[in-house]
């Protein structure tokens, strides 16, 4: 029996490095490497206001992708309301701070908690009713569409189509492009550390078990329902926090800031590209996709065609995502399995 066939047979979400529990230095090493690379970005594009804006949005999407990865990649819950939960954080922060007069940080925390509660509740309903992936997807999609409608309908509060200005945060470092970038980067790293520590802990074992085989996990003593709700709570809090922080930095929120087409679709592509269920894959996917989006902007309408081609390539050749595929290549090389020619390059 060929080992490669076995590896290919494992599920789409089976990250290569999930096989061994990561040691703490390795865990922080990979997060620090990501942080170091991304911290250098302002040196490169810092003089362009527009490009810094794009970079900040890219980091916000990295947070969304990490949150979605925790919920979908780690526990198999298809949450099609990433944008809506970020929107709960974004609109929540803006309204609490500007209309209610709650201090900015408290508004952000409360809004993130709100998003966590909504996400946790959706998960709880899906888990209680034992809904499969598709039905959980439908329920969360309905929530996402309802949220968009609510935002459009309650225009006296939300500004409807045109959105609202966010005055909280104006005149602070949050409106300075470079510092705002580092705030967002800090949030990305925080999300990575939280997810990384979760994966290493008992919770991470439960995630892997229930993702592999729900019934076997339950029979081994894993409270599958509880761990799913945990993942939804923590992941949704990340989404809410990132959505809220982005609202404070951008100074304006509108339905398209958190729309299904503008957020969820993109996040799914980013995650699929980076590697579902991996730790730093979502950040890699978000980075590559953001850069690609900038490069292709001159193509205009052809950009959509280019994405189409990209997605096809993605799912044909690197279905498991970039990180697992690269890890596989690296692992295969030193072993020099029979049948492959020895490396021409010395060293």
């Amino acid at each position: 029996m060929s080992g490669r066939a076995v590896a290919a047979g494992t599920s789409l979400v089976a990250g290569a490095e999930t096989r061994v529990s990561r040691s703490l230095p390795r865990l922080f090493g990979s997060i620090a490497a990501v942080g170091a690379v991304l911290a250098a970005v302002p040196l490169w594009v810092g003089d362009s206001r527009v490009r810094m804006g794009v970079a900040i949005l890219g980091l916000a999407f990295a947070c969304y992708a990490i949150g979605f990865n925790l919920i979908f990649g780690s526990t198999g819950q298809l949450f099609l309301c990433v944008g809506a939960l970020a929107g709960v954080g974004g609109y929540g922060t803006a309204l609490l701070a500007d209309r209610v007069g709650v201090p900015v940080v408290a508004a952000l925390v409360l809004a993130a908690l709100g998003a966590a509660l909504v996400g946790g509740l959706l998960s709880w309903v899906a888990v209680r009713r034992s809904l499969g992936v598709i039905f959980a997807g439908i329920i969360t999609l309905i929530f996402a569409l309802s949220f968009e409608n609510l935002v459009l309908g309650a225009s006296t509060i939300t500004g409807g189509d045109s959105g609202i200005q966010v005055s909280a945060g104006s005149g602070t470092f949050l409106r300075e492009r470079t510092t705002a970038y580092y705030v967002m980067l800090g949030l990305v790293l925080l999300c990575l550390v939280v997810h990384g520590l979760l994966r290493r802990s008992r919770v991470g074992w439960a995630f892997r078990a229930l993702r592999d085989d729900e019934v076997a996990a339950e029979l081994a003593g894993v409270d599958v329902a509880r761990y799913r709700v945990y993942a939804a709570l923590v992941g949704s809090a990340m989404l809410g926090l990132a959505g809220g922080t982005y609202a404070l930095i951008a100074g304006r929120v509108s339905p398209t800031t958190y729309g299904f087409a503008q957020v969820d679709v993109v996040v799914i592509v980013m995650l699929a590209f980076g590697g579902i269920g991996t730790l730093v894959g979502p950040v890699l996917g978000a980075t590559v996709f953001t850069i690609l989006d900038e490069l292709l902007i001159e193509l205009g309408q052809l950009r959509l065609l280019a994405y189409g081609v990209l997605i096809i390539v993605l799912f044909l050749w690197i279905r498991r995502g970039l990180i697992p595929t690269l890890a596989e290549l690296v692992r295969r090389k030193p072993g020099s399995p029979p049948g492959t020619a020895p490396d021409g390059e010395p060293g």
Partner: protein
Amino acid sequence: MALLELHEVGKAYGGLPAVDGVSLGTGGGEILALVGPNGAGKSTLLKLVVGLERPNRGRVILDGHDITGRPPHLVRRMGVAMVQQTPRSFPTMTVRENVALGALFGRDTPPDTDEALEIADEALAFVGLDDRRHDTVGALNLHQLRFLELARAIAGSPRLLLLDEVMAGLNDAELETSIDIVRAIRDRHDITVVWVEHVMKAVMGLAERVVVLDFGRILAEGSPDQVMRDPAVVEAYLGKEDLGA
């Protein structure tokens, strides 16, 4: 007091009774075999105990606590482990991690990860899979996968072990090892074993008491020799099947 007591337990699917009012008790490190023709309700009965299915009527009592309809993870933590007919494992984990998971989540007071891995090594040595502990489960055959499940079950330190046809399809040598291992589990850990089996040779060699089910009801009960001589059993079951297995 009996560790496990079933009181008039029943389960019907769409009006068809799979288990139709079964009462029995076991405990004290007994090895109890459940036998009967296909569709007699043996596997369903085990599922009712661990909570994979919910009975329509009757009560399941474990050590004096009513556990009827409790979810599997709670039943597991109360000390009941099951090995299913079709082995289920965690394909992204190594053999060792598969077993460690049983220790991490199956016990009432969970060990830390390192302790769990040590417990896993012991359990793997016990079932003779210690040389495979760093393999992925994809590399194991059916026989080894069942032993892997068995190791995961005992890593959770159960008081009651339910085995669902774990010896089906084994050759003679594998059968001998399996019988020895089940007996050793009981002897060493004082675990009560309830065991659904088709392989009569294994039943005769291992069981201390046999309960024969037919159409969801208990047809006969007693020592293996007694039961095999019971005319009702011979007619309902043994008459139709090859005794030699």
